[in-house]
């Protein structure tokens, strides 16, 4: 990259120390624990190395079929998620739009939904006997099987994961230099052509970051296919084999290894696309993209489209909201009767869970953006050998089932005590928090990389030639310029950590450590617990949604102050 060309070699030991620390973190909390579990894929019964299990894998028709199903679903989801996210991002960033902030916050809500709760709620709305199909059957005499099979998985995943694209694209579009648009306008580019040839290409790092995440996430996603009863995909096949009680089947781990390899390949391809292109812009904060007004017709069309999209994507939330107030809801368009008692139950015995979720997820997301920014810096601004491997290693976490990571932690840290105390590490919540940080690091990392790609290196050089040290350049120039992207990463990590379940379920060692996702799962295990479970789900959405909204406000305000200073 040209940034590297401008700064050959590495000045001082700082980058090396950062490199070492990050590598140590990844080794200790990702590679080693996972290694202790999935080495099974490479050894035979006496412990000798073998590739025989891989040969067995490729001989199985079910697995080939699963591989292509997963690939198809991942590609289709990336496409549909883009169809949802790109117009939302473009309309709200480019135009004078009432409620743009509200729309962007609402657009993030689908992520705040534990997958199995989302699927339960969606079944109530779109399922075989869901509200929509019951109404259709009553009025028109037909039903839409949108929740069935691979189509159903694609539908649910698109609704669930489009915010990855939305968040990153919005951050990227905000960073586009207004001068670029003006020049394009001067040269006669308008409308669609302006978007296609100028705006979208300039926002490419953000879009690719989001799209790559969606692709990899869906390819590796386990929860959605499982709750929808689709087993002919890779992740469920691996899960079913790993978790069969009492069977130690190496093929499960073989699938995990293959998923990791494929995820890294996808990210590498995304990086190849970006290679040799320069997305950095010089001006920041001053003049962002101009906001323009829509004509009456255009805005009616835009609002209509947005309301429609939000209605579909927020259907799971409407579903659990109804569930949380419902007495009995069975084979009917709406619940039979309503009650507040589920909230009473939840407030009586689940208060500590809210605190736990906030504590673990804020710490984990904080850790993620620190590490993410550092890795982005090392990759884009230094020449350290093998620096790209930090990215690949960290991103491998996407493809590792939570259960595997959790078993690895219990195995690796068996007998290790918390520093300065007698407490065994496996009995504390520290491991839960670290598991969140490791599993959600790829999200923060993609956002931080995209943000730094848009910052021109000459801004830092200017700071340094004015006498700023390397560290204060990072602190005073780089990080503020990357703020939008870092925030997007923080929010994604935070939100998705708040709904993590598989690792939590294994690592929680007392009920007092349990976060909200665990509580929701616990309630949802019984029929009389559905109401309280949904109520806790609603609380989770509110708490996390509020956090997201406040952080958006925070960035908007600091942006406003910067602008005011420049203009004043």
């Amino acid at each position: 990259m040209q940034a590297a060309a401008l700064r050959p070699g590495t000045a001082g030991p700082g980058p090396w120390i950062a490199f070492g620390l990050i590598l140590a973190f990844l080794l200790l909390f990702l590679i080693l624990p996972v290694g202790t579990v999935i080495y099974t894929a490479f050894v035979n019964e006496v412990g000798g190395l073998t590739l025989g299990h891989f040969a067995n894998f490729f001989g199985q028709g079910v697995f080939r079929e699963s591989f292509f199903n997963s690939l198809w679903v991942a590609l289709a989801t990336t496409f549909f998620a883009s169809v949802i996210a790109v117009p939302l991002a473009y309309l709200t960033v480019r135009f004078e739009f009432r409620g743009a902030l509200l729309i962007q916050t609402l657009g993030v809500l689908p992520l705040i939904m534990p997958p199995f709760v989302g699927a339960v709620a969606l079944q109530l709305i779109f399922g075989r006997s869901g509200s929509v199909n019951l109404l259709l059957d009553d009025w028109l005499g037909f039903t839409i099987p949108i929740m069935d099979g691979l189509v159903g998985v694609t539908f649910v995943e698109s609704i669930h994961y489009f915010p990855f694209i939305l968040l990153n694209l919005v951050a990227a579009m905000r960073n586009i230099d207004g001068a670029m648009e003006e020049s394009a306008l001067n040269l006669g580019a308008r409308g669609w052509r302006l978007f296609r040839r100028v705006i979208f290409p300039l926002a490419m790092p953000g879009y690719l970051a989001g799209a790559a995440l969606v692709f990899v996430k869906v390819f590796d996603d386990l929860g959605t296919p499982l709750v929808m009863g689709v087993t002919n995909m890779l992740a469920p096949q691996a899960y079913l084999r790993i978790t069969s009680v009492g069977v130690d089947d190496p093929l499960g781990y073989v699938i995990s290894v293959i998923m990791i390899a494929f995820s890294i390949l996808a990210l590498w391809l995304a990086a190849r696309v970006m290679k040799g292109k320069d997305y950095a812009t010089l001006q920041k904060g001053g003049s962002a993209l101009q906001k323009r007004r829509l004509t009456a017709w255009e805005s009616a069309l835009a609002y209509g489209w947005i309301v429609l999209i939000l209605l579909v994507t927020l259907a799971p939330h409407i579903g659990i909201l109804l569930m949380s107030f419902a007495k009995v809801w069975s084979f009917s368009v709406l619940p039979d009767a309503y009650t507040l008692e589920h909230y009473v139950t939840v407030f009586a015995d689940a208060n500590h869970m809210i605190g736990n979720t906030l504590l673990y997820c804020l710490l984990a997301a904080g850790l993620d953006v620190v590490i993410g920014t550092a890795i982005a810096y090392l990759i884009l601004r230094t020449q350290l050998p093998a620096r790209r491997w930090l990215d690949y290693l960290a991103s491998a976490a996407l493809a590792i089932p939570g259960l595997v990571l959790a078993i690895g932690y219990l195995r690796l840290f068996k007998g290790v005590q918390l520093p300065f105390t007698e407490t065994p590490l496996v009995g504390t919540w520290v491991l839960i928090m670290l598991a969140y940080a490791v599993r959600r690091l790829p999200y923060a990392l993609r956002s931080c990389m995209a943000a730094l790609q848009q910052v021109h290196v000459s801004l830092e050089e200017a700071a340094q030639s004015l006498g700023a040290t390397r560290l204060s350049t990072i602190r005073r120039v780089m990080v503020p310029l990357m703020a939008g992207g870092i925030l997007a990463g923080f929010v994604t990590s935070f939100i998705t950590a708040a709904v993590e379940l598989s690792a939590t379920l294994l690592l929680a060692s007392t009920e007092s450590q349990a976060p909200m996702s665990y509580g929701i799962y616990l309630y949802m295990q019984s029929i009389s617990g559905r109401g309280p479970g949904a109520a806790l789900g609603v609380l989770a959405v509110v708490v996390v949604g509020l956090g997201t909204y406040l952080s958006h406000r925070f960035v908007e305000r600091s942006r406003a102050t910067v602008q005011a200073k420049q203009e004043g």
Partner: protein
Amino acid sequence: MQRSLFTATAAAALATACLTAQAGTVTVLTSFPKELTTAYQKAFEAANPGIKIEILNKNTTASVAYVRELPEGQRPDVMWASAPDAFEVLSSFNLLQSAPEVVNKSAPAKIGNYPLNDPKGMYYGQALAGYGISWNTRYLKAHKLAEPREWTDLLKPEYFGHIAISSPSRSGTTQLTVETILQGEGWEKGWAQLLEMMGNAAAVTDRSFAVPDGVNNGQYGIGIVIDFLALAGKYSGYPVDFVYPSMTAVVPANIALIAGAKNPDEAKKFMAYTMSVPGQQLLFEPKIGRLPILPYSMLKAPAGYPVPQDIAKRAKVQFDSQLSGARYPVVISLFDQMVTFRLKELQAATKAIHEATRALKAKPNARGSELLAQARSLAYTPLVGAENVKNPEFLELFRKSRRDVAVSKQLTGLEQMWADKARANYERARDLAEQARGLAK
């Protein structure tokens, strides 16, 4: 700033993390719903001041992994769950210790033909459960379907696409149901019945709870479930009902002391309590809805409550748990390859067979009936014969470690063969049934 904030919070966090369970706490690892565990926790703590019960809820897979990975002395004290297979696995890894003194002598030794306690004395029956059919009354009414009574009712064409079951490889309770049918009808006939019933299935779910859940909210009309999951829904006001078919077995849900537990003495007190008269009385609570192990003469049962001994007596099957254990891996693997992973093809074949049957009934045709019989035989014959499943060498293969590449290759080869054959058979059956239907014109 972020960094300093982080270190500060981390330091505070470490300080609070040091608060651990004190002595006098019994940790119970369980997969049971919150209503049940909370009821027992409250009642026991009230009766035994000074002992605290800590409930640790994990699904069965996570429970087994959790106990296996923890060092001795840090493990939870009590394991309490339905699936007998989880206890078998823990027992085979020497993770359970026997505690015969907790058993209530008033409980019978056997329910029907099924031993209440583990013959090796590692885990004990604490409550009973039977398997049966549950349905959503609104759903059946809307689709104009009759309420089923027996497994054979579920083979009828009108139930096509309305039935849900969880996969026996995922749910120990479904495995017992499947095994009950196989033992009651015999291997070949049992499989034929099962496959025909599964041809009517809308879904084969991964979690056992997904089935009653789907029936409760009306997503599925009929579910094959364990009694208390259906009864709890019924008593919570959902429009569902439940029936024990005559081909059923009553089996225990178990409780066991974990080897290397933190607090074994007080744990035993808790175990004994769950099997005592007040502990058993709790099972009758509407939101719990389980069958007790103690005879009803010692308890106050609500009127009309099912009596396990009667169900066991009525049941046509003499359940052989040894036979069930011996062919366990074959049964679950065959079910997955023939049903779970090939559900789409099996459904298509069954649909074609239903249509052909209807057409031929209206306009009989000898050649058509012949083709239809072939189609049925292709679709509903198990790929492993009754003789084969008695062959100890064949069963032994499934017991060997899959870490051995050669064994794994043999097993995956076998599964591959089943999968291919099942698919080919279902597709051929569909063709034949469609031809048969064509002849009926």
